[in-house]
């Protein structure tokens, strides 16, 4: 027996545990309705006139209609990784999975495929379909900016998923992992965001924004595109290559967090 069948077995188990029928279907319907309605409204009312460049318009359009979708798919990611994996560790389900002829790394991959990759595929599939059907001119005019905006949007989601994974592995209990995960999200995206903004406005220095842009590279991208409007009140106007650097740094951080999580999973869990 190859590795494919046990991997599929673990993956489908995780899938049916993470998404009870018809929870996944309802989530998809909700996400699709939101995306198609907002993209349709943007198609009716969208105008380049407020923006100096097509790139700034494209970035703003893609960003504004994808971030609520990210929150929608973020909910199952938090629940599946923090609570789902935490509970599996608490109940010993993960240890049972170790009896499969699979390396530990594959078991974690199958679990993450269900908890993280499925929501991200839904996000990408639905939003790109929405763009193709309702705003084809945007994709045709500037596919590079669309791809970069997506990359910048997904980096903090992946970073949060990695940190939640570490939390779940460390705490090994569902409810505490979920509560800590929610607190982590609040700290990352509300408190740190406010602190970075306040410091930047308060002392007129851009270092807090630069640090925060590694966690959320979309900030660098937004500051760059807002910079094309020539607003003098901006504290930080990165160049395009700088913005790209922050997106790359964000993914580097994601890679580091996931490597730590995989190593921790392999070493700390015994049969």
């Amino acid at each position, binding site marked *: 027996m190859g590795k494919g069948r046990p991997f*599929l077995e673990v993956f489908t188990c995780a899938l049916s545990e993470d998404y009870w*029928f018809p929870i996944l279907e309802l989530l998809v319907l909700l996400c699709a309705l939101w995306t*198609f309605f907002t993209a349709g409204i943007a*198609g*009716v009312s969208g105008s380049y006139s407020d923006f100096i460049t097509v790139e700034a318009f494209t970035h703003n359009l893609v960003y504004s209609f994808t971030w609520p979708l990210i929150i929608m798919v973020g909910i199952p990611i938090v629940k599946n990784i923090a609570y789902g994996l935490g509970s599996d560790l608490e109940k010993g389900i993960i240890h049972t999975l170790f009896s499969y002829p699979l390396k530990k790394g594959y078991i974690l991959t199958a679990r993450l495929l269900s908890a993280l990759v499925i929501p991200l595929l839904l996000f990408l599939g*639905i939003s790109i379909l929405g763009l193709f059907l309702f705003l084809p001119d945007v994709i045709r005019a500037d596919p590079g900016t669309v791809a970069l905006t997506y990359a910048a949007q997904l980096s903090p989601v992946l970073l949060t998923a990695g940190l939640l994974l570490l939390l779940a592995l460390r705490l090994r209990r569902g409810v505490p992992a979920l509560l800590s995960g929610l607190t982590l999200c609040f700290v990352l995206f509300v408190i740190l965001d406010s602190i970075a903004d306040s410091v930047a406005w308060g002392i007129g220095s851009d270092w807090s924004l630069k640090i925060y842009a590694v966690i959320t590279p979309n900030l660098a991208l937004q500051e760059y595109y807002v910079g094309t409007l020539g607003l003098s009140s901006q504290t930080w106007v990165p160049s395009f290559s700088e913005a790209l650097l922050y997106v790359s740094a964000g993914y580097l951080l994601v890679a580091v967090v996931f490597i730590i999580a995989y190593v921790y999973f392999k070493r700390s869990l015994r049969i």
Partner: protein
Amino acid sequence: MRWITLLGRTGTVVLMVGLALIVVWAPPPGSPHQSSSSGTMPAGEYKIGHRGVYRPQTGFEISVESTESVRIYLLGLSSGELEDWRTQVREAYPDLDDMWIKIFTMPLIFVREAYPDLDNPEIEDIMDIVWNVSVLDKGLQTHPEIVVWQSPPSRTLSYEFFPADVLAVTVVVANPSSSNATVRTKMRDLAALAPKDRVILPALLLISIGIALAIPWLILRKVKKSTL
């Protein structure tokens, strides 16, 4: 069994996306903005009934009632072509006010096509000839590509229009008959979130694929439940 579950769930997900597309497309396009005009059109003349820029998601419905048979033309230009035509009009009629050029770009181009020898005319001179159906016919002969739609001669008609691309549309009503006509024109703006031609095919495709993938899994699920 695992594959059936996997494909079945994929099918239900795809089905939901297809249904969402149908829901977005389903609301009947419509908006409260309507306008109507009524007046007498001299025999052998035409007039501009309406002008506006439309997208695939915005269109209009035009209804016409007339005492004589009239023809309706929907003439469309992209913004680049329109600007190009305006430049041509400015060059052909350098003394004309820019406001006239902007409002009457198309008729002025048609006049130039019909009367190429007319050199830098006064607006009063043009006004006598600009609305002749023969001028319109000459213009459309030279630029058949701008005719987006044209009606057969008719006393009553109604037409719903959504452009395939962003288009500056001019609605022209022509009275080619030998008698004056009392023409009543009604325009109603339409808006649809989803362009019909872009949405229906993918929606039907997704729904079909979704159902095909989901049915084996749903049957298996039912059988499993009944045996438990």
